[in-house]
């Protein structure tokens, strides 16, 4: 079966972001970018499904500026077969991303679409679910285990109270949680091979999707700063402070 994986280029998760002085956004100039960690897990899961003989082709799609090709190449080096870049310099909201992905789903007809559960920049946690609604496909969000069985997939989901398993009929959409798998590293030979794998570039207009925005960022500010408090000498002093100074015990 064909698996479609969506990946996003985001600020590297180790970078401490800075808010621009004019409060318009965070500063992304000269900041290290990488594949969103949840998307890496999505790629890894697709590759494992291929290694098990369940998946036959892995198509990876990303939406963003020309440089987002890097993240597609990374995915190809990890084992995806071909890439699609929907090139745009505009900042897109989740609904538009979901509409663009729907157009790709309509064209490619994958049996399984795997996305990360959220991107670590906007922290929205929306796109996979919206794609589910637009395509009418069932969803298994926050997956920690994915088992494909014939024309069904059982997805174990991480929920607040523990784990819950849903059975979905294929085609279906899965969004990955951190514990689904441990992504591999790309080897140098595979990185070289990835350069020769096909990568198609299309525009939102090619897919017939109009980009419109309904949300305006009024301002972006740094969070209220917490300052370091005091160091206590021992447990007795700690308990005393908590009881008599902070009054929280």
């Amino acid at each position, binding site marked *: 079966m064909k698996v479609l994986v969506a990946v996003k280029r985001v*600020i590297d998760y*180790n970078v401490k*972001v800075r808010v621009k002085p004019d409060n318009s956004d*965070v500063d992304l100039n000269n900041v290290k970018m990488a594949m969103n960690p949840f998307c890496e897990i999505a790629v890894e899961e697709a590759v494992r499904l291929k290694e098990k003989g369940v998946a036959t082709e892995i198509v990876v799609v990303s939406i963003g500026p020309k440089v987002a090709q890097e993240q597609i190449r990374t995915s190809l080096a990890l084992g995806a077969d071909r890439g699609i870049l929907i090139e745009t310099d505009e900042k897109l*909201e*989740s*609904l538009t991303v*979901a509409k663009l992905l729907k157009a790709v789903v309509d064209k490619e007809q994958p049996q399984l679409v795997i996305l990360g559960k959220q991107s*670590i920049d906007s*922290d*929205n*946690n*929306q*796109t996979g*679910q*919206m794609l*589910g*609604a637009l395509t009418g496909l*069932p969803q298994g*969000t*926050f997956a*920690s285990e994915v088992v494909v069985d014939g024309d069904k997939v059982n997805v174990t989901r*991480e*929920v*607040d*109270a*523990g*784990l*819950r*398993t*849903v*059975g*979905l*009929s294929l085609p*279906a959409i899965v969004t990955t949680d*951190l*514990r689904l798998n441990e992504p591999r590293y790309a080897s140098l030979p595979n990185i070289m091979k990835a350069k020769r794998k096909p990568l198609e570039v299309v525009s939102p207009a090619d897919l017939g999707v109009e980009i419109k925005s309904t*949300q*305006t*960022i*009024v*301002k*972006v*500010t*740094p*969070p209220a700063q*917490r300052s*370091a*408090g*005091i*160091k*206590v000498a*021992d*447990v007795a002093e*700690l*308990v005393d*402070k*908590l009881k008599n100074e*902070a009054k*929280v015990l």
Partner: protein
Amino acid sequence: MTILVIAEHDNTALNAATLNVVAAAKEIGGDIEILVAGEACAAVADAAAKIDGVSKVVVADSAAYKYQIAEAMGDLVAELGAGYSHILAAATTTGKDFMPRTAALLDVNMISDIVAVESADTFVRPIYAGNAIATVQSSDSIKVITVRGTGFDAAPAEGGSAAIEANATDKTSATSAFVSEELAKSDRPDLTAAEIVISGGRGMGNGENFEILYKVADKIGAAVGASRAAVDAGFVPNDMQVGQTGKIVAPSLYIAVGISGAIQHLAGMKESKVIVAINKDEEAPIFQVADYGLVADLFDAVPELEKLV
């Protein structure tokens, strides 16, 4: 302007997170109605009707909603919600699952995890793991929103007397079904609602060592949390994880034991009123946000703490 709040529940009891959502709805202003979708959930509807400030409770009682499967919930809430100005749910795993589906069916964008209301169309939410705070204005005809519980004080659970109205829809999903669940059982308070949280990290060494945290927790009525490192190492189950990808907590007292304080962990707890760090590494980043820091071996400090509290 009428606001629809989707109740969070397990068919027998209303989850306290719903009260925080009602509080957010009150700040937006307008009539507040609650949808209780579930199976045999009359007790939940009764509890919802008593919440202060609620004018109507709609009950959709059907096997289709027993497990609040996203496909059924998305269809139901999109159909019912079309007449409202705002649709609000708690930013729990359930709310995060069906609300974006609802929004897409209504062809509107969604605003996740709000922590403050500026006006009926402008909301505040953290981005980049809480390292930046965005104020977002929405021009959508219906605002679909999830609410971060720790951002709002709970609305009073008593004082209201809303009318309860039945809704007979049945949006059984043909493509998705509940298979099984494995719930973590605990007598300790719910992590997201606890007044005191004590969390362990990689420094705990193994799962058995969490026993020393449980002992302190039981003595002071605390919930026990964990860092991602402790969960990934298999010390404790994932539903105990505090952080950007786990639960967001804001207790009066948060005690971090053997936790270094990575950005992703801080995202889940730095709104706590008082933070205590116990760590043997005095360079650990957690000390930069801790009100009280103790540089000590946790295996000495925690048992002593248990004796003294």
